[in-house]
């Protein structure tokens, strides 16, 4: 358990069974009154934000978050199936939880999944992923400008903006954090 005086911005705590993070924190002590710890809190499951004031005598539950390494296996309908690198147990993540990152998941990709107890909360991909361009308009020969962009389709159908010199069959590196083209790896 945490004491109220342990609270600070960024601390993760558990409220009503849900993992939460303190996103803003203010120490108050009115007049001769008790110390009050005014927090803005985000529920890490629902994303809801709310205010909560703790008194100095209150105890706050710790939140045990654990990251584990997984390998991507296959897609099963709306679910993405990963296998635990240590136990080989399968973990199903809904596409809703994965969000836009699902466009950058490739075979055998090594990922980190964040758990609260046994509930998966979040997934982190490698910062960069290499993918091959499936479809794009041919670029002008010899045009190496990197600031003129055009749309291109990845093998999974996702459309991404690439420089005009990229052609079908080229392998590019994508920054998964921003979801944007980083550079060209090889010519197709």
């Amino acid at each position: 358990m945490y004491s109220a005086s342990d609270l600070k911005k960024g601390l993760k705590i558990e409220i009503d069974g849900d993992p939460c993070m303190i996103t803003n924190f203010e120490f108050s002590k009115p007049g001769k009154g008790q110390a009050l710890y005014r927090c803005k809190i985000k529920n890490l499951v629902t994303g809801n934000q709310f205010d909560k004031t703790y008194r100095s005598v209150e105890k706050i539950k710790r939140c045990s978050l654990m990251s584990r390494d997984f390998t991507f296996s296959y897609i099963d309908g709306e679910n993405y199936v990963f296998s635990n690198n240590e136990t080989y147990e399968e973990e199903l993540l809904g596409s809703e939880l994965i969000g836009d990152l699902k466009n950058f998941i490739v075979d055998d990709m090594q990922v980190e999944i964040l758990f609260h107890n046994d509930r998966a909360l979040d997934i982190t991909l490698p910062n960069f992923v290499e993918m091959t361009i499936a479809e794009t308009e041919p670029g002008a020969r010899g045009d190496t400008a990197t600031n003129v962009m055009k749309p291109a389709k990845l093998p999974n159908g996702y459309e991404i903006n690439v420089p005009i010199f990229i052609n079908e069959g080229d392998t590019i590196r994508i920054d998964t954090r921003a979801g944007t083209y980083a550079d060209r790896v090889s010519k197709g």
Partner: protein
Amino acid sequence: MPTVCPRDKMPTGSIALRDAVMRSIRAFFYERGFMEVETPVRLKIPCMELHIDAEPSGDHFLRTSPEIFHKQLLAAGHGKIFEIGKCFRRGEFGPLHNPEYTMLEWYRANADYMDILDDAKALVQAVAELRDPAWKQMTVSEAFTEHAGWDPVGNYAEDRFDIDLVEKVEPALKQIGGPVVLIDYPVEAAALSRRKPGTPLVAERWELYIDGIEIANAYSELTDPVEQRRRFKECAEQRKAFGKEVYPIDEAFIQSLEKMPPSGGVALGVDRLLMLIAGADSLDTVLPFR
């Protein structure tokens, strides 16, 4: 002899500003015939208050306030005294709190909290160029009824009072802006103030807020040794129940109350006043080493 720096001539850098305000505060009190006193920073027995924790210093404690000694000086016949000095409170840290801070404390014998309010107004008007210079005054009862929807006088509940003060009343005082004096506290929140004659449910205590920030706390001082001992004992029991360290009762202080004239006194946070003069919203601006 130092003189009060005209408030529109205050320097802007925090080091020079502190120098100018300190000189001005001293000049203000010298001009009014106050005596500057020095009292111990390390003490055997800290003043017992429910929510104030003293920092240990060897076999002593660092003072959380100089009031215990000032009252003994009043009892010894020194009728107009002030002190500027460091006080220490364990675990208090935030934009408006620092565990070590500068307190200005002053007392008048044969006076009450309203006389002290006159001093406080004159002092703030002398040193601070306020955005909104109109002074407003409201009772705690009025402030809570209007901004929190209930009246804590005669109906006091500590947690509700503290939380609503921070979440509802103080933000309203910020909205009102400028200096606001919150006056006549529920007797349960009297601390070391006396009951208001004829109105036993309230205590003669005020707090000065400027732009919603608490600057000073004043009392018509409690001079009844029996009542003081009862409050210390009650406070000791509550501290024990909260698992806090319980300080012994300071017998020399209790005894001195027998000779203490009716008095008014106040503690004013100098760092917060500097912060307001500097137009800042955190003590970081005026405490460069923290």
